[in-house]
């Protein structure tokens, strides 16, 4: 009995010691391989093609698009010709406005969607009544709600947040429900065997068991929230990055369109990364998974 019991203990200690070293080793290997250089080369190639088509050779059609030099010059200018750069507070106002909207909508969607999804998965009767409604509404693309959202809410602001919320809410609820359904029946049986009351089953089996799907759902939810937000802001916004894009188009301030697009991409990526990070923190058991 001693040998098998000593083995995993040893493994665990070994893992702790080697974790850092392994990382350093992998980093070294990575630097030595051609990969990082190819990645940089790929990005440079992209920038080069963009520069050459729009600014250097001014190819037909491409010449109308803002080129990288114009965009970066505007972006970093202390006195931007179209009024948006990293030195201008209005730029940050747009960013903050968009982030606030997403934050409100995403927060509300999570607060409502996760409990609803958990409950739908847990109580069959409740699900029988609510799921068909969900299924009827879900095929309608979220962005088709734009006019109705504006009509329903007295203020534009509420309409945009509602639209963003709606997309996030469906993604969160559905994934949470799928998460509960993904839990193997055997865990419920085991929990009952061990003398669980319903609340124990809910908090100690349903919630942790559904967590991986919930976080997948939250990531999707964050993605669609930004997706809908842009459409909402373009059609009905005052301030916000989507509005900035549309307004710059109307005002023929083309470099700003690209600045706003890149900013949107970066913030969207950062918010997904943040969710992944929190998910990894909450699901150590999943992250540390090794082949059995």
């Amino acid at each position: 009995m001693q040998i098998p019991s000593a083995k995993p203990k040893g493994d665990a200690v070994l893992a702790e010691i080697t974790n850092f070293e392994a990382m350093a080793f992998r980093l070294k290997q990575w630097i030595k391989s051609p990969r990082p250089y190819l990645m940089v080369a790929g990005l440079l190639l992209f920038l080069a093609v963009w520069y050459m088509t729009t600014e250097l050779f001014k190819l037909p059609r491409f010449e109308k698009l803002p080129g990288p030099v114009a965009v970066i010059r505007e972006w970093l200018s202390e006195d931007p010709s179209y009024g948006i750069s990293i030195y201008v507070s209005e730029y940050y106002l747009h960013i903050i406005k968009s982030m606030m909207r997403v934050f409100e909508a995403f927060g509300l969607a999570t607060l409502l969607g996760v409990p609803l999804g958990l409950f739908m998965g847990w109580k069959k009767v409740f699900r029988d009544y609510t799921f068909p409604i969900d299924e009827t509404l879900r095929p309608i693309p979220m962005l088709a709600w734009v006019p109705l959202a504006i009509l329903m809410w007295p203020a534009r602001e509420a309409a945009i947040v509602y639209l963003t919320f709606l997309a996030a809410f469906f993604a969160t609820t559905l994934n949470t429900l799928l998460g509960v359904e993904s839990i193997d029946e055997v865990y419920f049986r085991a929990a009952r065997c061990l003398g669980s009351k319903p609340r124990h089953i809910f908090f100690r089996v349903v919630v942790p068991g559904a967590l991986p799907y919930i976080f997948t759902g939250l990531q999707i939810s964050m993605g669609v929230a930004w997706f809908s937000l842009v459409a909402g802001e373009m059609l009905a916004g005052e301030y916000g990055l989507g509005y900035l894009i549309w307004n710059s188009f109307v005002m023929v301030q083309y470099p700003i369109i690209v600045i706003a697009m890149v900013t949107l991409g970066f913030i969207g990526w950062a918010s997904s990364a943040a969710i992944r990070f929190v998910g990894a923190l909450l699901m150590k058991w999943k992250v540390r998974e090794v082949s059995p």
Partner: protein
Amino acid sequence: MSNNGSTVGSVSIRNVTKIFDPEGAHVLALDNCSLEIPAGEFCVIVGPSGCGKTTLLNAIAGFHGISSGEISLDGVPICTPEKMAEPGADRIVVFQNGALFPWYTVMENVIYGPVVQGKMTEAEARQAAGKILGEMGLQGIANCYINEISSGMRRRVEIARAMVNDLKILLMDEPYRAMDALTKSVMHKHLLDVYDRAHKTIFFITHDLEEAIYLGSRVVVMTTRPGRIKKVIDVDIPRPRDLQVLASERYRELKMEVLEAVQEEARKAFEAGEREFA
């Protein structure tokens, strides 16, 4: 005989019949099964796949009901056709593919039962769990997550998770099914140690005959569908047992006896299976 001096955990299964009726298909899973398991006995059920072994176990555990008959635990009826048993910590199941909660560490899994039942505070449960894990040589992995430990470890932790409770009978549903022979023999030794120490009734399902004789005090052979009890064989090999048993004359005789009883059923089950797929 192998009573261990236990006074609780006697199960009596009387004339139990179970008919599955999914959408009109009439399947007789258990047909008039009767079996008395005295307190503290290590009772092994063998039989071909689909003979209703797991159906019987599920009825005792409280996962589904029965169509007629009665199952009682220590003289108290727990499962009748009118009322299926309520799953509870006096009859804990070790599942075929394991059911340790992957979102908890080994320690958190083991303390689960006492904590949710409100029998112990978390600190007390940790102490009790630490003691049991120590006895089983598992203290080193207490803070590992389930995905980090081997399948053999998992089975032992699952047994520890059951034993930490105040249980009367341990129900084991082919726990070592998918294991290689070497791991299995370590598992067997471990289970025998646990049994010799704890004096609990064990209801063990398998279709590995050698395992059945090596571990069991009695081997119950079941027929293929409809599931009936075909033969009960007393394993009069003294405990504590070790690997020497496997080389003994008596072991070989018993194995032959069980083999003969099972062979016929296995063939019938195989032919039935062939027909099902045709």
